[in-house]
C-alpha cells in the first residue's frame, strides 16, 4: 500500500523507533520566541546543557513587542524584561536572533517562509500552536510546549507519538476569488469538523480548491489547523511552493537539487489510505463570520446567528457552550450577521497579515474612509511585509482611509502588548482565536477575512463582500 505525505516525512525523520511507545523524531528547524522560551533556557543552564544545533535554531521577538514607534523604550517593564531575556539567552547559547530593530523581525510564522528557513519535507517546531502554518510548504510543523522547547534545544529531537492521518479535500475552483478567501475556506472547514475534529491527527489539505491557492493563502489554511484540533496541517509542495522559496535570504545553496528530490518524493501516493476524510465543495463556501467564543462557532455572512439548539445538534454540552458564548458576545440568535455593528477592526496576525492579505484589503479601502465610530489598524506580519507594502503604496491607502499603520508583531491577536480591546468592545479581526478575553479582557472578537474586515471598517457593520465590486 502507498504512503501519505505525512507518513513519508515522519519515516524519514525517525531516529529511534520502539514498539508501543513514541518515536524519537529529528527536528530540522527550531523557531524560538520570547514568551515560551525563557524557562527552557533556564532548564538548560540548571543542568549545564548546551544547545545541540544552534545552526538549526532561529529566534525572533513578536508576541510582546510594541507596534508603535520602535525608537522609544518599551514602557511595560515585564515585557521589556522578557525581550531582554531572549537577547541574553541567544547571546549565551549562540543563537541567531532577529531582534526588534532587525529588518527581518516579524511574527515567527511569517518570517520563517519569507526568509527561506521553512523547507518542504522538513520537520519544524516552535513553542507556539500556530507553527502549523509552515505545513503550507509540505513541512511537518508542530507546535510544542516549553519543556519540549528545552528538549529540542538540548537534543534536536522530540519523542512523539505518531498522529493519525486526516484528509480534508476541497473540490472545485473558487469563482469569486476576491470575496471567498482562504480564511473563509478554513473557517468553513472548522465549522464542519468542529474544534476537536482534528484531535490526534495531521490534516493533509487536498483538491483543486487548495492547489489553486497562492502560498500566502495556503499558509492561512494551514495556520488554523490547530483551531480544528489537529497536530499539524500539510499541503503537498508544487511549483508554486518551489518558486516561492527560490532566492530567499536563507534558501540553501543546493536548492535546485533539493527541489529535484522533493518533486519525486513529497506527495501522497495514489493508493495511500487516510484514517479519515472530510470533503467540502468550494461552491458551498460563502464569506464567514464567527459569532461565538471558539472558531467553530461561525456562520455565513448572509445567515442569522443560529440558536443554541440548532448549533448543538442535540449535544447538551455544546448547547450550554453556545448559550454562554452568546451571553459573552452580547448577541441573540436570529440576528442577521450584517446587522452586527462593530467598534474596532484589526488586520494582522500570522493568519492574515501577509502581503497578499494587505493587497486584498486595500482594494476595499481605496478612496474610502473608515466610518467615524470605528477605530481600525493594520499590523503587518513582518517588517519585510511592511516594507513591501510601503513600496507598493499600500500604507498611503490605509492611512488616507484613517487606518493606523503599525510596526510588525502579534499585536492585538493576543494583546500582550498595549494593543488591546476594552471591555465590551466588538472587533472584526483577521486573527485566528475568538476566545473570551483573547484580544483584551471583556473584548468581543469576530473572526473574518481581511476583505471582510476592511469592508466592516468602512461600513461600521459586517457586509457581504460578494455584493461589492472588488476588481
Amino acid at each position, binding site marked *: 500500500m502507498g504512503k501519505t505525505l505525512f507518513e513519508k516525512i515522519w519515516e524519514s525523520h525517525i531516529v529511534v523507533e520502539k514498539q508501543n511507545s513514541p518515536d524519537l523524531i529529528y527536528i530540522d528547524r527550531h523557531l524560538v520566541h520570547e514568551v515560551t522560551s525563557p524557562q527552557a533556557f533556564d532548564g538548560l543552564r540548571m543542568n549545564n546543557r548546551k544547545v545541540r544545533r544552534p*545552526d538549526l535554531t532561529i529566534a525572533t521577538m513578536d508576541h510582546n513587542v510594541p507596534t508603535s514607534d520602535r525608537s522609544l523604550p518599551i514602557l511595560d517593564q515585564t515585557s521589556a524584561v522578557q525581550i531582554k531575556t531572549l537577547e541574553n539567552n541567544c547571546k549565551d547559547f549562540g543563537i541567531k536572533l532577529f531582534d526588534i530593530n532587525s529588518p527581518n523581525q516579524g511574527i515567527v510564522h511569517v518570517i520563517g517562509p519569507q526568509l527561506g528557513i521553512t523547507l518542504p519535507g522538513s520537520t519544524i517546531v516552535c513553542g507556539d500552536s500556530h507553527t502549523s502554518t509552515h505545513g503550507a510548504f509540505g513541512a511537518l510543523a508542530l507546535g510544542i510546549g516549553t519543556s519540549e522547547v528545552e528538549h529540542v534545544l538540548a537534543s534536536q529531537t522530540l519523542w512523539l507519538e505518531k498522529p493519525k492521518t486526516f484528509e480534508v479535500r476541497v473540490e472545485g475552483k473558487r469563482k469569486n476569488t476576491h470575496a471567498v478567501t482562504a480564511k473563509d475556506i478554513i473557517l468553513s472547514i472548522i465549522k464542519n469538523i468542529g474544534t476537536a475534529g482534528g484531535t490526534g491527527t495531521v490534516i493533509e489539505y487536498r483538491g483543486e480548491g487548495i492547489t489553486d491557492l497562492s502560498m500566502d493563502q495556503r499558509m492561512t489554511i494551514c495556520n488554523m489547523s490547530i483551531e480544528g484540533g489537529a497536530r499539524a496541517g500539510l499541503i503537498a509542495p508544487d511549483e508554486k511552493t518551489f518558486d516561492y522559496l527560490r532566492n530567499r535570504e536563507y534558501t540553501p545553496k543546493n536548492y535546485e537539487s533539493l527541489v529535484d528530490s522533493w518533486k519525486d518524493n513529497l506527495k501522497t501516493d495514489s493508493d495511500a489510505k487516510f484514517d479519515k476524510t472530510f470533503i467540502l465543495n468550494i461552491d458551498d463556501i460563502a464569506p464567514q463570520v464567527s459569532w461565538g467564543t471558539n472558531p467553530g462557532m461561525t456562520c455565513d455572512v448572509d445567515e442569522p446567528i443560529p440558536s443554541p439548539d440548532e448549533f448543538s445538534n442535540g449535544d447538551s454540552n455544546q448547547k450550554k457552550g453556545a448559550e454562554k458564548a452568546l451571553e459573552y458576545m452580547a448577541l441573540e440568535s436570529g440576528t442577521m450577521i450584517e446587522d452586527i455593528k462593530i467598534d474596532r477592526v484589526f488586520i494582522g496576525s500570522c493568519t492574515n497579515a501577509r502581503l497578499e492579505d494587505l493587497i486584498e484589503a486595500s482594494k476595499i479601502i481605496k478612496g474610502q474612509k473608515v466610518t467615524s465610530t470605528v477605530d481600525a489598524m493594520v499590523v503587518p506580519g513582518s517588517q519585510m511585509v511592511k516594507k513591501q507594502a510601503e513600496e507598493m503604496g499600500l500604507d498611503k491607502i490605509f492611512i488616507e482611509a484613517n487606518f493606523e499603520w503599525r510596526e510588525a508583531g502579534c499585536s492585538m491577536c493576543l494583546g500582550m502588548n498595549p494593543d488591546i480591546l476594552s471591555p465590551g468592545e466588538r472587533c472584526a479581526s483577521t486573527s485566528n*482565536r475568538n476566545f473570551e478575553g*483573547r484580544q483584551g479582557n471583556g473584548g468581543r472578537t469576530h473572526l473574518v477575512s481581511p476583505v471582510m474586515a476592511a469592508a466592516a471598517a468602512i461600513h461600521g457593520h459586517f457586509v457581504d463582500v460578494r455584493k461589492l465590486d472588488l476588481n
Partner: protein
Amino acid sequence: MKPFENVKSIVTPLDKVNIDTDQIIPKQFLKLVQKSGFGKFLFFNWRYDENENIKSDFILNDSKYDGSQILVAGDNFGCGSSREHAVWALDDYGFSVIISSSFADIFFSNCFKNGLLPISLESKIVEKLLQETNVIEVDLNNQIIKTPSENIHFEINSHKKKILLEGLDDISQTFQFEDKISEFEKKSTIPSVL
C-alpha cells in the same frame, strides 16, 4: 520531576466544554520568565472581575473545594494556545489530576512533562464524576479511580505511565541515544539554516 503518587481528594467540577488555555492562564501572565508562582493566576478572569474583586459564583472561589487535587471538566480541555504556563498554573494551584472526556494534544503532552496526570474517560462517566461529592482516589499504578460506589478503570499509554510513576527526566533519557542522533545527522539531507 517528582514521581506521581496516588491522590485522594474531592473533585472540583468545572462543567464546561472547550476550556482553552487562554482561560486557564490569561495572556497578561505569560510575561513572567520563571516557572513558579502561576497558581494565583489560574482562571484569573473567571475568578476575579475587572476590579480584581473575587467573583463568588466561580467554583474555585468556593472554599468547599480548597485543597482539591482533582479537576473534572468538559470535552476538549486545554485547547488553543500551546502555553505550558497553563499546566504550571494548574500544578502550582494544587491540581495533580485532570479528568475530561477529551484533551487537546499539546496540553495533554505538556501535562506529562510536569508530573500531572490527564485522564480521559467516556463522557457518561465524566458526567457522573462531575456530580461526585465524596473523596475519590486515583491510583495510577493500577489505573483505577475509586469512588465510594465503584472502581473506574482508565487507560494510559505504558510509556507515559512509567514517566509519571518514576518522575523521569526526558532529556537525560534521550541522551542515551546520542550516538543514534549523531548517526542521523550524518545522513540528513536538510542543510543548516546559516
